[in-house]
């Protein structure tokens, strides 16, 4: 490093003072002095430029930062492709910082923080309304899931009320296939509700990971979901957001749970029946819901039909690039029957799905209980070997009835559609068929690490060390991965 080069005669032109301008504190008196000098000394201005980077650097910098193809030249924003996994990983670190601010200091360093009597372990998911945390109830010694109202909503009275109402409605449903609400803290600065913690994954995650399910699994999950739904309906509730991400599958036991009555409302709550705003995931919405018109429990049956369809084929019945187009298709297009996509699906199941996906509510089953009975019968037939595979390839396609006149009004009237692009809770327009690469990466790295032994232990330690010193978890953890979160 040349300090005080020959072409800089004056002492006050020393490089040291210029380095101060490059790295120093702009508020310091030394900085101000040096800045004042540079104002009147052209040689120092050139030297300053040179010290910050040589001629090659400045030139390369200009060439490579100059906007090309997809860049936005006006704002100087580059187009830099990022996969959803990367975006979610970045979001997660922001979310963690935010959540920590709402918690008190943890009792154990490996915990995120504390919320009353609950130790918070980690973030399970983040949605439009709130944040779901995995926690531990220190009084009752059990793991819990905590749903925390998002901080920006906690200050809004209406949001607090809605949160409390959601919690009350959901707490009223006690059923073996509905996630229980243990506790509601609505007076806390950040209101939260405490739920039963289900170790496992969502139906969305299961299908994304392993593709369509077997017929017996579809029927079993269908029966259990229908029974949970029947319990909610018996309380006068419409779930309104039945979708694969809201059905949790517990590890090691064959049990499904319906969760997240995030949009559920008491059906006699007239002020909320017609809001003119459609919110939620479009892929599992009923036509009447897409339409923004009054709806009843049969709307949930349509959604559950879409879920059965999803289990059978690996994708929802109506797909399109944009949410509005999904809704239009839901209202106007016939679906392709499940047996056409998956030859393993017996006629009996395919017919049930068709009936649930009827555009007009009165053509569907009347109640969730009726659906449950129907599915149970098919399951029992299957177990007794009485079912046959679909042989319908050539027969008359009487599987759809076009909806005429339905759905027109609201779509034309421009129903406000809340497409929460900023909320990772939303499913992407088309489901991801294979697990995201970074999930595979974690697993494969772990597998690699485990398969190493003997003389390579030193290498293993070194690799492990390097991974640890990355400071941030090198890959998003599978269970934090959006959009297929459990218990969101």
């Amino acid at each position, binding site marked *: 490093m040349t300090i005080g080069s020959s072409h800089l005669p004056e002492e006050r032109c020393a490089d040291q003072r210029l380095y101060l*301008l*490059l*790295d120093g504190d702009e508020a310091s008196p030394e900085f101000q002095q040096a*800045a*004042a000098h*540079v*104002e*009147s000394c052209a040689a120092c*201005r050139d030297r*300053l*430029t040179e*010290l*910050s*980077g040589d001629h090659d*650097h*400045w030139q*390369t*910098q*200009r060439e*490579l*930062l*100059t906007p090309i193809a997809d860049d936005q030249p006006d704002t*100087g924003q*580059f*187009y*830099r*492709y*990022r*996969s959803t996994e*990367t975006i979610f*990983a970045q979001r997660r670190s922001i979310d963690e910082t935010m959540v920590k601010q709402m918690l008190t200091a943890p009792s154990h360093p490996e915990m995120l923080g504390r919320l009353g009597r609950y130790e918070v372990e980690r973030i399970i998911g983040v949605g439009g309304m709130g944040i779901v945390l995995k926690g531990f109830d220190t009084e009752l010694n059990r793991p819990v899931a905590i749903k925390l109202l998002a901080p920006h909503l906690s200050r809004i009275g209406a949001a607090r009320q809605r949160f409390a109402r959601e919690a009350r409605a959901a707490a009223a449903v006690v059923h073996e296939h509905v996630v229980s609400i243990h506790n509601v803290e609505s007076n806390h600065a950040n209101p939260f509700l405490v739920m039963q913690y289900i170790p496992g994954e969502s139906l969305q995650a299961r299908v994304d990971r392993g593709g369509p399910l077997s017929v017996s699994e579809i029927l079993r999950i269908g029966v259990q979901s229908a029974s949970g739904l029947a319990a909610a309906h018996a309380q006068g509730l419409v779930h309104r957001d039945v979708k694969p991400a809201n059905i949790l599958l517990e590890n090691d036991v064959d049990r499904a749970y319906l969760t997240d009555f995030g949009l559920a409302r008491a059906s006699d709550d007239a002020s909320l029946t017609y809001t003119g705003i459609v919110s939620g995931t479009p892929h599992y919405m009923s036509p009447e819901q897409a339409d923004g018109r009054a709806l009843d429990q049969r709307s949930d049956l349509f959604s559950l039909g879409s879920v059965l369809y999803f289990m059978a084929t690996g994708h929802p019945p109506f797909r399109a690039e944009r949410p509005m187009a999904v809704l239009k298709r839901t209202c106007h297009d016939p679906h392709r029957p499940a047996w056409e996509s998956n030859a393993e699906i017996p006629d009996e199941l395919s017919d049930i799905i068709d009936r649930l996906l009827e555009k007009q509510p009165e053509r569907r089953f009347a109640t969730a209980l009726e659906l449950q009975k129907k599915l149970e019968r098919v399951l029992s037939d299957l177990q007794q070997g009485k079912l046959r595979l679909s042989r319908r390839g050539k027969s008359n396609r009487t599987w759809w009835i076009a909806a005429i006149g339905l759905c027109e009004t609201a779509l034309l009237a421009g129903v406000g559609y809340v497409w929460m692009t900023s909320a990772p809770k939303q499913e992407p327009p088309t489901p991801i068929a294979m697990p*995201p*690469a*970074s999930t*595979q*990466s974690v697993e*494969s*790295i772990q597998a*690699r690490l485990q*398969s*190493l032994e003997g003389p*390579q232990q030193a*290498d*293993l330690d*070194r*690799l492990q060390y*390097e*991974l640890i010193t*990355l*400071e*941030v978890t*090198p*890959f998003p953890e599978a269970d934090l991965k959006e959009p297929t979160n459990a218990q969101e």
Partner: protein
Amino acid sequence: MEAWDAFVEIYEPLLFRLARSKGFQQADAEDFVQEVLTAVAKAVGRWVETEDRGTFRAWLFRIAQNLAINFMTRPKHQRLGSGDSQIAGLLAQHPDPHGESTQLFSLEYRRELFRWAAEQVRLKVSERQWRLFWMTSIDNQPIAQVAAEFGLSVGSVYIARSRITKRIRETIQTLEEQAR
């Protein structure tokens, strides 16, 4: 700095751009990005087995580079393949340093490196400082003119653009040292 994060932040846009320049549609290019990153992750064990292995960071960048160049010299629709033997082959294979693909790769790599570094630095400076830097260093507008436009002295524009340039250069340097 987090090696894997930085790696992904640079390689995702890089691989995507390379694939697009090869005529891939958006969705295919996205698949390709995932494919290469998955292959890299799957090959982690190889790093352990390599004789002269250097650091994990350096290895990450090298294997991804080989994979990407190898991909570009292949027929369009051939899959990369991430089996162990293929990975071994790709690692053993040294791309022609003067080949067209290598040249394109290093240009696009440099581009993403600069852009990544610029993004890092931009987060840490004020929007006004960034504008001063951008207008005088990238858009090539006369410094005196920009200074007048912002109501600032010429010296302060020099200082702002030099501070940012130095930080961009150092950010790149730090990464390259770790990836060497």
